[in-house]
Each structure stands twice: as structure tokens, then as C-alpha cells.
């Protein structure tokens, strides 16, 4: 089951859902809008290697906006610190964002219950698009879980601003026995 906007607001007031800062104007019929922070990250590596820490450049979006080039990829973040210990959050684009050809995540919409922080947006632009700090770029829904809850305590907990991938920290190959043949 998905929470209605009114229920999201109630759960923010009772602290089952975190959304800081909270602006009641961001509540929709069944989601809450997320606004874009001013910091972006771009990878500098010629080829991404998931086993090696990637290098990034940080860019500040000026008040009059920054153009994302067609087929470019950047990481951005929500200004809001969001999460829940009771419900499973999911990230979505605003339909206005999607109609302009912008992905806000790259097949990673599901957030772990207990994860609280800014959301890192995976911004893939299919058309050139000017983005602005504070624009309503995405939205978050909350879903009721079934079963005993164990809270997230992973590496992205407490994110402030965009966080690059830290998959290189999972050195699974050192102990893993390999794919079954």
C-alpha cells in the first residue's frame, strides 16, 4: 500500500518519516516533492571501474541555472534530508522533469527502510536542459512493508549532498568463491 499525501504529512509530524526542511506545499496527493540542491558531481574517469575509487569534479549550479548537455550524466542531490523507519521510500521524477527528457535515477528507485539523508539523483539528460537550485525535480513515495523491520545502516547513511558510488569499498572478490558453474 502506498501512503496518501495527507498520511505522509501526518507521519512527518509524528517523526515516522523524516523530511527536513519540510514545506507542506511540497505534498502531493500521494507523494512529496524533492527539490534540487546546488551541488553536482561528474565523473572524470575515461572508463569506470567498479573496483577502483572513481574521481569526480564538483560543480556548483549558479542561481541562474546550469545546462545539462544531451546524453550527459551528473549526480545531484535533494535539498531535503529524507527517510523513514516505518515505510519504504521510492524516488521518482516529476512528470515535468521526465517530459523534458531527464532521468533522475538510473534503475535505482528503491530506498532501504531506515536510510536517512539527502537523495542522490542520477541525472541522465537525453536533451539539453537547464536546471536550477531549488527546482522541484523529483518526488518520493512511501510504501507499507510486510514483515519484521531491520533498519539500514549502509555506507550512504546520513548523506549530505550528492554521493558518488562507493561500490569499490565492497571488496567481495577477496573472499567470494565465484559463480557456480
Amino acid at each position, binding site marked *: *500500500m502506498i501512503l496518501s499525501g495527507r498520511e505522509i504529512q501526518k507521519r512527518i509530524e509524528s517523526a515516522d518519516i523524516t523530511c527536513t526542511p519540510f514545506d507542506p506545499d511540497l505534498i502531493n496527493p500521494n507523494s512529496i516533492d524533492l527539490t534540487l540542491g546546488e551541488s553536482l558531481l561528474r*565523473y572524470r*574517469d*575515461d*572508463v*569506470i*571501474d*567498479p*573496483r577502483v575509487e*572513481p574521481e569526480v569534479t564538483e560543480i556548483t549550479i549558479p542561481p541562474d541555472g546550469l545546462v545539462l548537455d544531451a*546524453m550527459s*550524466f551528473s*549526480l545531484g542531490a535533494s535539498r531535503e534530508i529524507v527517510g523513514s523507519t516505518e515505510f*519504504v521510500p521510492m524516488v521518482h521524477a516529476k512528470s515535468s522533469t521526465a517530459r523534458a527528457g531527464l532521468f533522475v*535515477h*538510473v*534503475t*535505482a*528507485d*528503491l*530506498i*532501504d*527502510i*531506515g*536510510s536517512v539523508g539527502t537523495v*542522490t539523483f*542520477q541525472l*541522465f539528460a537525453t536533451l539539453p536542459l537547464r536546471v536550477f537550485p531549488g527546482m522541484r525535480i523529483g518526488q518520493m513515495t512511501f*510504501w*507499507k*512493508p*510486510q*514483515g*519484521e*523491520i*531491520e*533498519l*539500514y545502516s549502509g555506507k*550512504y547513511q546520513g548523506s549530505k549532498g550528492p*554521493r*558518488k*558510488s*562507493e*561500490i569499490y569499498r*565492497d571488496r*567481495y*572478490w577477496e573472499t*567470494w568463491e*565465484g*559463480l*557456480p558453474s
Partner: protein
Amino acid sequence: MILTGAAITRAVERGEIVIDPFEPAQVNPNSYNYRLGSEIFRVTPREDPRAGVRQEQLEPTGGRYLLRRNQLYLGHTAERIGSTRYVTSLIGRSSIGRLGLFVQLSADLGHRGAVHRWTLELLPVLDIYLYPGQILGQVSFWATTGEALPYRGWYGRHDVPMPSKLLPSELHRHADRDVTVPRARDAET
């Protein structure tokens, strides 16, 4: 409702969810991490688009594959995954999305009753190396309401990356040869 990690583990123990092989360490608060399987195919158009696509198997170099940006590949999960009771949804890990790799193209929803190695639609937006066996994405499981229809689909019978049925392909002619699991069991009603 979406199952928590503890509920996924219990459903696997009861046989209501199949994840094979299953590793407790790959359970998340509300999903399960799957690994990338060993085979990856590059999908390229033929000169005459009506003739469909060419699907060529890549050879790994030094234990890894190099995937080029804006080029579609098909891969597969290492695990056989599905459920006769819950609806499976397959997405990426945020650590993979943060690297600009799509693992499916707005087709996250599985059919209840289909148990197989899932075909992944891999679309990198940056050049990237991939290692067979690396954790790539996650599956979540959702409770349904209403009477269940049995799954009678075609893709669910295959454990290797299958090309789109919309496109003519030599693989379809040999599809029966690729069947490595019996037809997925019909959903229990």
C-alpha cells in the same frame, strides 16, 4: 505491500520465493541483491531494421567486460529468481545507478510464477567495466490482492539472455535448445 528482508528470508525458507543460490549476506532491509551472470551479449541493429537485430556474445578480457556508453547489451542474473506467491520487481543497486548503468529499461515488473535467471537490459551512459559475479542490482517482492492467474509466458522459460520477441533473431529459432529449466510452474491459486 513490499516484503522486508526478514520476510524475504522466511519466504525463501518456506519455498514461496526461489532465489538460487541464496546468500543471507545479500539480504537488504527490503530487497535482495543479485549478482551479474557470466554471459553478456551486445545487441546491434542490422542494416535493414526489419531484419531485426544481431546479438553477439562478448568475450571477457582479464575476467571483465568493457561496456561502451549508449550501446545496449543483454546480460542475466546469476541467480534463478521468482515466486509463486509474490510479485518480483527487479532494479539496480544505487551504487550501480550512481555509475550511470541502467540494468533494465522501464520494465522492472516480473510476473508471479516465472522462476528463472532474469535477462538484464544493460545500458551504460558512461564506459564501464563489469565483472561477472559482482553485485549489480536488487529484487523486491510485493504481496498481491485478488485471484492469481497462472504464468504462461515465454521469456520465463529461459535462463540465458533472450532477445526481444519484437525483433526477428536467429536465437528464437533455436530457443527450444536454450531451455534449461522446465516450464515455470503455474502459480498456486
